[in-house]
């Protein structure tokens, strides 16, 4: 194939979501259950320091710590930063201050948001208090945010707490969604652009001359860029295969009846096999060396499956290096 002008770089949205389910140890369980009940708990280290939010191990001595105490819901800002443009998922949708707050009775600070009218209303050393979320589930977001304290809000001290609550929270689901715009790069763009014309484009290594398909832009043996584009196929040879007896779970594949054959197929001219489903032949008649060709469906962006060409089987010596 002659070198054409490079196709426009492809881009597509890529959303990655993880609903991580995390279990809590005894200390974190007590803390988050406490938040649900409107109580803020900390732990006391061996040297009498009160840590809020509580940790399970002393960060200096690494000793396990379990002694829970209740601290106040009012505290002092130790440092802050004005967030004029809140981002998605942050505690408040209107401009707010990020704050580290040392709650009354605690020796360490908790990070959260402070609802204030503007940066001039915030200062290090200012007194703030917890604003509870309307609906609480046992999560750090049960504290909706902090707000400026009122004159006369009590100054609490740390008092021992058993940490026992009915129906303790033992786990959280940590939702995470990240949005990307994926670009596959030069080599894979050329491959995908070729597929849109029902062509399979590989790339040849200038050093070892192997043709990679799909190409990723580099020869993993020589460590050099593969730049010469080569059209391979359309027909190829089954080099090895397996018989699948498990019904596909993905909705796009629900129409595929089991058992079916999934195979490695060395397209003519390619230096390695790619994989695809074999159709148009009973599953128990598929064999190594079977000659196949792609079957495209209307509007399909890649071959739906491969079917026998009817040619005689390929000689083993021709494809043995590609298994």
């Amino acid at each position, binding site marked *: 194939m002659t070198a054409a002008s490079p196709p426009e*770089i492809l881009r597509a949205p*890529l959303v*990655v979501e993880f609903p*991580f389910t*995390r279990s*809590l140890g005894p200390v974190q369980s007590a803390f*988050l259950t406490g938040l649900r009940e409107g109580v803020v708990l900390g732990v006391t280290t061996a040297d009498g320091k009160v*840590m*809020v*939010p509580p*940790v399970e191990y002393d*960060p200096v001595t690494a000793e396990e710590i379990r002694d829970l105490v209740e601290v106040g819901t009012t505290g002092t800002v*130790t*440092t*802050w*930063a*004005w*967030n*004029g443009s809140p*981002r*998605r*998922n*942050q*505690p408040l949708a209107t401009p707010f201050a*990020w704050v*580290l707050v*040392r709650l009354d009775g605690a020796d*360490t*600070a*908790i*990070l*959260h948001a402070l609802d204030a009218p503007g940066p001039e209303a915030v200062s*290090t050393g200012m007194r703030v208090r917890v604003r509870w979320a309307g609906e609480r589930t046992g999560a*750090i*977001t049960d504290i909706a945010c902090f707000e400026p304290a009122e004159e006369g809000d009590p100054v609490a001290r740390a008092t021992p707490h058993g940490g026992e609550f009915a129906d303790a929270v033992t786990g*959280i689901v*940590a*939702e*995470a969604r*990240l*949005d*990307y*715009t*994926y*670009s*596959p*790069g*030069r*080599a*894979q*763009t050329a491959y995908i652009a070729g597929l849109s014309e029902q062509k399979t484009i590989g790339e040849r290594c200038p050093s070892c001359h192997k043709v990679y398909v799909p190409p*990723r*832009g*580099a*020869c*993993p*043996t*020589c*460590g*050099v860029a593969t730049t010469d584009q080569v059209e391979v196929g359309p027909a190829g040879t089954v080099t090895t295969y397996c018989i699948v007896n498990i019904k596909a779970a993905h909705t796009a594949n629900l129409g595929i009846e089991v058992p079916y054959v999934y195979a490695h197929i060395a397209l003519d001219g390619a230096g390695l096999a790619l994989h695809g489903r074999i159709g148009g032949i009973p599953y128990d008649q598929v064999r190594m060396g079977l000659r196949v060709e792609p079957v495209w469906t209307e509007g399909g962006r890649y071959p739906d499956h491969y079917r026998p060409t009817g040619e005689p089987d390929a000689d083993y010596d021709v494809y043995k290096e590609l298994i």
Partner: protein
Amino acid sequence: MPGTPRTRRHAREVAVIAFAQSDHLRRTDELSEVEMVMPVLHQVLAQTGLKAGEIGFTCSGSSDYLAGRAFSFTMTLDGVGAWPPISESHVEMDGAWALYEAWVKIQTGEADTALVYSYGKSSPGSVRDVLTRQLDPYYLAPLWPDAVALAALQAQALIDAGETDEAGLAAIGARSRAAASANPHAQLTGAVPQGDYQVAPLRTGDCPPVGDGAAAVILAAGDVARRLCGRPAWITGIDHRIEAHSLGLRDLTDSPSTRIAAEHAGVFEGPVDTAELHAPFSSQEVVLRKALGLGEGVSVNLSGGALAANPMMAAGLIRIGEAAARIHRGESDRAVAHATSGPCLQQNLVAVLEGDRA
């Protein structure tokens, strides 16, 4: 060996003998990761005359969260010629920690040379959102405090402590970008407006540019280093330390982990003439200068540092590479290189690099 003897604190002498980096750009949509990394690998190998197959150990640093894809680093292995199988490892961190692993590998005697590379493309996603996912998942991550917000808390703590002010921070950004004018790879150079508040007190000029880039270094032991490099940058000490993960437990105006790592790396055992500090935010340079005890006589970030180019997962390795390159060129005799990872300088790596004296 002629010249001033260097402190011998490790089993083997190991040096950085070559360094290469990409041009750091806001976006590189036309390049896959391997397409971005491969020219850098070829450049660094060419500096030594080594072929990929002659390297004893290869270690890389990158992050799947930047790519949005699992095991994304495996793709870039195509660029080093990983077939037949090579001795290889990967850290889901900045490449400076990959270099540390490679240094350990050479210390064990299992390799005489190592190729270390790292890369990051921040352009496909929103790096501020992505970095929230490295935070404590119980108390922090559900609030989505982004890297700029956390750095801003640290900056305000420094201002409250009287260690700097907004003008002082702006001067750090301006000095870095002016220095970067001599760095053809930097993303942001020259006079850059300080801009609006991102998260106050940090303005745009206090924050690193977001971009894509890659870097690579080659390490070699003893006589191999002497044979392949005119003036090897000997790693006479290297160490890394971590702070407690809860920000509220820490004194954000200080970096004890940097100081301890520096002590173990031998920074304070002699004068340094050059420092390459990985301070993505201007305020973090204030913290690092204090922790490392850098006086006015030390050239800090003549490359422009992370305020001029901050390719995630490569910017720390680049600090080691830039420091080493100054030694290679005879512009430095004893340099300190620093890399960081995590919010508010949570993890810190410090290396001392020395050249043979005439």
